[in-house]
């Protein structure tokens, strides 16, 4: 029964060889990258980019849990917030490495 369900669902890699332009990176990529874009969820634009090529919504429902999909589709935060978060993270990381000393202050 499990095997039959898996066959009906299709393999998670079945669309990996499809290719299209990635509006984030600015060049052609395979669907495999959209599935595994160097982060812990598929790319947040997967649906937007692929819904005209195959049933991308069903693909997500077949292969990912609710929590992953919701995390993937959560609204992106404003750029300034992202930059601030990364600044704080870098400062903390540098502070940890220097034994708590702050990096040289910027002019």
């Amino acid at each position, binding site marked *: 029964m499990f095997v039959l369900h898996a066959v009906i669902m299709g393999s998670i890699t079945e669309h990996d060889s*499809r290719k299209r332009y990635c*509006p984030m990176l*600015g*060049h052609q990529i395979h669907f495999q990258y959209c599935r595994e*874009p*160097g982060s812990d969820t598929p790319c947040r634009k997967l649906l937007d980019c692929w819904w005209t090529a195959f049933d991308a919504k069903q693909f997500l429902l077949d292969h990912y849990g609710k929590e992953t999909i919701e995390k993937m589709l959560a609204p992106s935060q404003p750029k300034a917030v992202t930059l601030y978060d*990364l*600044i704080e993270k870098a400062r903390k990381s540098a502070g940890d490495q220097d034994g708590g000393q702050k990096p040289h202050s910027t002019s």
Partner: protein
Amino acid sequence: MEQTKILLEEHEMPRQWYNLAADLPNPPLPPLGPDGKPITPDMLAPVFPMNLIEQEVSTERWIDIPEEILGILSLWRPSPLYRARRLEQALGTPARIYYKNEGVSPPGSHKPNTAVAQAWYNKQFGIERLTTETGAGQWGSALAFSCALLGMECKVFMVRISFDQKPFRKLMMQAWGANCVASPSEETQAGRDILAKMPDTPGSLGIAISEAIEQAVTDQSGKTRYSLGSVLNHVMLHQTVIGLEAKKQLAKAGEDKVDTVIGCCGGGSNFAGLAFPFVLDKINGAEIDVIPVEPESCPTLTRGPFSYDHGDTARMTPLLPMHSLGHTFVPPPIHAGGLRYHGMAPLVSQCVVEGLMTPRAYHQLKCYESAVMWARTEGFISAPETSHALACTIDEALKAKEEGKEKVILFNWSGHGLMDLTGYDNYFQGNLHDFALPEEDLVAGMGSMEGLPKPEVRKTGKW
């Protein structure tokens, strides 16, 4: 012989940038940080010099362009305004179609308009090195070019998958003296952490930006900052040279008004650059359709695993043309274009909320069809992003034909596609299929918009 290019002399270049923040009735609110307090620009001082931070928050309508920046921009500016007569003839339209050719810059796009400015302001502040992230390399090469001309160092973290697939842009950066490394790299803690967990990762823009920021923040000399090519206000500001030149050129061409302004809209910078000077006219009463064009967004929204916290009244949604879906009813507003999409420039977003701009989405098949028609009429081969603006321009020109109206249409030809021909290959091989959305999905999508909480929007209601 009819004139095709409308040119300006170098001394006719705009001497000031236009700042839309001075005229928007409800300028965007500062975003909130994790503690719920506003992120103020001075909190970004570790990565941006204070002179750029001042521009980021300025409400001055006009900001002087330093002579030295103008001197560098004059290597390719003023960019020509073209009349697309051959396209007009092919379409049989009474519309007059004009476009700014931003592909004439050394890196081949509009991006150096801000890269040069940012590098200059950083240098004035005593900065010697700029870091950034890049995917395919459009932005990275623009910054590398700018740093080379100003004698500054440039460090580019290029997403690994792009680093491997786009060797030519990497070489462009190297030709301009930049140090371009694949991200994630061993050069930062952020990179090392990712590589420890996923040594074979293809990388991402998120990782690359983490590395670029870390290098800027942790540089002990204090002489390194970060630079970005889209979204933020000062980037939009620098790009307004495009629209300001276009106004002068249209006047030279004998046009006393423009009906439609179109540009492709990813992070918003090339579109804002062309459109903002015309948005000023619209705020002051001119009737102009201003259309930011985006890639397609999925129109189906269902409850359950997909949850959204914005409704459609924010008008953030690009309207998908009916014909591209092949259905006879208008699909629901696709608020996913504002939500699932990566960050849009706040100034552009606020214009959409106010009704000053009406976004539109086209899927890639239509875009490549338009780009091929463009190549076979006007001759230029367009960047994939630029092809979205072409698709909309052709639609508007055909609409003018149906209406029998002599509309003036202006769009931004933001860059050439000579480094991006593999996309055309995909199109020519017939690999851009159309998947027909089940009717019930679209109907369900419309129903799913009901009951969603409406966002708080700040708008005058005037447009």
